[in-house]
């Protein structure tokens, strides 16, 4: 109970700095809106420029069929090969389709006609997806031409395989549904790591740590007392994110709310441990802030599977990712929110979070204890 006065002191200090408090509470919502609306992996409305050297009904049908969807859009008509460079350089189109002279003649005589697809590869993700759209479209056109050709010859053929794709959990493939749980982890971690590390280091920088030293409190009591208010604030922020995710992006929690909050609390404690570890190392707020950003923002953004698929990374990076709490938290949160998974399939992730928290809190209280008693 000796930590209560410290908690009260920290709360008073936070309350006095109205703006920092405002940032801690409203920032999550702001970021959620930003991420929810702006971050989108869906590749749609890709600009396609067409160079139709053939100018026949067949070539026009191919060009129109390909670009008449929400994925590929006819944006530009090129008359000459020399214009292709300029169109791709100036990014007027990301894809150029070239239908060579003699296209329909070759097709109608029953052989294989080749078209060229040029893709702007500077954004590899969009490029590979748009190339796939183009290829699927061209193959589709090809099999239609084939069936018509057989029809005309009085032969009936059936396409061998009919594909029935189905999506689970997120049938409209909304990126927001995938990212909202990610934002959740990102914001919670950032705000706890930064605020705990800064609040401890500020005492060091302003020299008030000395005053705390003279108090009869044990090092870990001071630290936990300082960090607890931020955990409380982060819980409020978490609730705001959940409500907004539900209201704005239609992300409903399918699983157990109790389990979800349990996971959030555990994750916040992990962030607290990380923040304390940083405060044990840093002497100035500037350093503490950048260590916090580097150790929480970047890895969370990059190595946790928030945006980029973990499995495609080199094993070393996957290894680093495996140490970080966010990876486990994201798996838990996505599973609970999107798939209604219970505790048992997720216990290894819970265990990993617990171990991380235990390790960081132990190491940092040993270090800070040494600092304080020196």
């Amino acid at each position: 109970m000796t930590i209560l006065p410290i908690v009260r002191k920290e709360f008073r200090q936070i309350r006095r700095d109205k703006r920092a408090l405002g940032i801690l509470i409203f920032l999550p919502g702001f970021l959620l809106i930003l991420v929810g609306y702006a971050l989108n992996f869906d590749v749609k409305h890709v600009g396609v420029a067409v160079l139709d050297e053939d100018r026949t009904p067949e070539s026009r049908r191919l060009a129109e069929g390909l670009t008449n969807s929400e994925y590929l859009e006819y944006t530009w008509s090129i008359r000459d090969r020399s214009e292709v460079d300029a169109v791709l350089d100036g990014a007027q189109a990301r894809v150029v389709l070239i239908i060579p002279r003699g296209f329909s003649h070759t097709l109608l005589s029953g052989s294989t006609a080749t078209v060229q697809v040029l893709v702007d590869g500077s954004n590899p993700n969009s490029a590979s997806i748009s190339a796939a759209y183009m290829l699927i479209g061209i193959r589709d056109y090809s099999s239609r031409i084939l069936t018509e050709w057989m029809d005309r010859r009085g032969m009936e053929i059936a396409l061998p395989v009919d594909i029935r794709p189905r999506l689970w959990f997120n049938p409209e493939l909304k990126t927001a549904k995938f990212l909202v749980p990610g934002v959740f982890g990102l914001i919670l971690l950032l705000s706890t790591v930064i605020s705990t590390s800064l609040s401890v280091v500020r005492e060091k920088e302003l020299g008030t740590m000395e005053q705390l030293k003279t108090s009869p409190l044990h090092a870990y009591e001071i630290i936990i007392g300082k960090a607890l208010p931020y955990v409380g604030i982060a819980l409020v922020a978490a609730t705001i994110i959940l409500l907004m995710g539900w209201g704005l992006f239609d992300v409903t929690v399918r699983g157990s709310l109790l389990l979800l909050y349990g996971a959030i609390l555990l994750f916040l404690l992990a962030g607290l441990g990380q923040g304390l570890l940083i405060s044990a190392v840093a002497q100035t707020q500037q350093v503490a802030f950048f260590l916090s950003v580097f150790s929480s923002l970047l890895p969370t953004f990059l190595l946790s599977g928030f945006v980029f698929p973990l499995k495609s990374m080199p094993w070393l990076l996957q290894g680093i990712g495996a140490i970080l709490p966010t990876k486990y938290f994201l798996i838990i949160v996505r599973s609970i929110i999107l798939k209604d998974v219970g505790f048992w399939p997720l216990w290894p992730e819970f265990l990993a979070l617990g171990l991380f928290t235990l390790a960081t809190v132990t190491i940092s209280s040993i270090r800070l204890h040494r600092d304080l008693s020196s």
Partner: protein
Amino acid sequence: MNAIREMIIKEFLQLSRDKRMRPIILVAPVVMTVLLGYAATVDVKHVGLVVCDLDNSPESRELVERFTNTGTFEVVGDVARPSDIDAYFDDARAVLAVIMPRGFGRDLKKGTTTSLQLLADGADANTANISLNYARQITIGFSQNLLVEQLLRRGGTMRIPQVAAETRVWYNPDLRSANYMVPAVVAMILMLLTATFTSVAIVKEREMGTMEQLLVTPMTRSQLMLGKLVPYVLIAFVDVILVLTVAVLWFSIPLKGSILLLFALAGLFVLTTLGLGLFVSTVSQTQQQAMMTAQFFVFFPMLFLSGFTFPIENMPVPVQVITYIVPLRYFLEIIRGVVLKGVGIETLWPQALALLAIGLTVLTLAVSRFQKRLG
């Protein structure tokens, strides 16, 4: 001039006194580049695949083999009932499942249409989308081969019309994500150092109470301001050179355009970020506030709204409109254009002009606010 020099020296001394600051300024950008270069890959590889082969015929096994041959998919489970697939999706072991119905091989041999079910876990929308596309391509290829085989068997030397596509990728033929991301890191570091560091450096004097001391020196306000800003601009450009070196030597990113042009335009970009940093310093009382404001209300929104990882053309139209006032958007177009496409000022002048306009506006606003606050 002397006064500014003294101020710059003071700032550098202060920075070097903090031992932990040096690695942050010199090592962190390199670490970030390497991390982003390797990690920021949206290539989809080793996607977990669950196979539910209810047919177990040579045909169904051939299709499964086609899936695994590409390296995109890795079979993580072979289940006997479709209901067993759930467990693999639940803990994210698999993203895709393929179900081949009973009679799959028989129908194919008979020449009638058989159906194939592909299930994807849409929770990870991007991976699901790309995997489904791959799976469809594989299946369509399989299907077309069968069709051609059948026709050849039936008609002997029959002629078959087909369309083949020859795909070529420009600028980044191997579709390496590093080529796209690493140039962007240069922009990110420029922004981080010039916007965040400067705002914090100024507020720190205020929080520590040393601002008063600086004000009573014979320095003018603008000298004071320049003295605070210049060191970070210098550091930022050193870091840009560092990161570009890593990019070219380590990631062998082709630097196709003119490096001088890049630096000149980076100068324009820095105008905007310095202005923002200065502005943040005028609205913050403590370092904590300055850092959070700079990070969360400048850095993050700029990162997300600039096309850093997420293409602008995918955003809803109102959001797209907002991106026009984000300076990073223009600088990313510039740096990617110069580095990957090798384009010059004749293509990039609209972006350069936009940066200049935004830079002058922001800087004027910030400087006048800064002067007022000091007075």
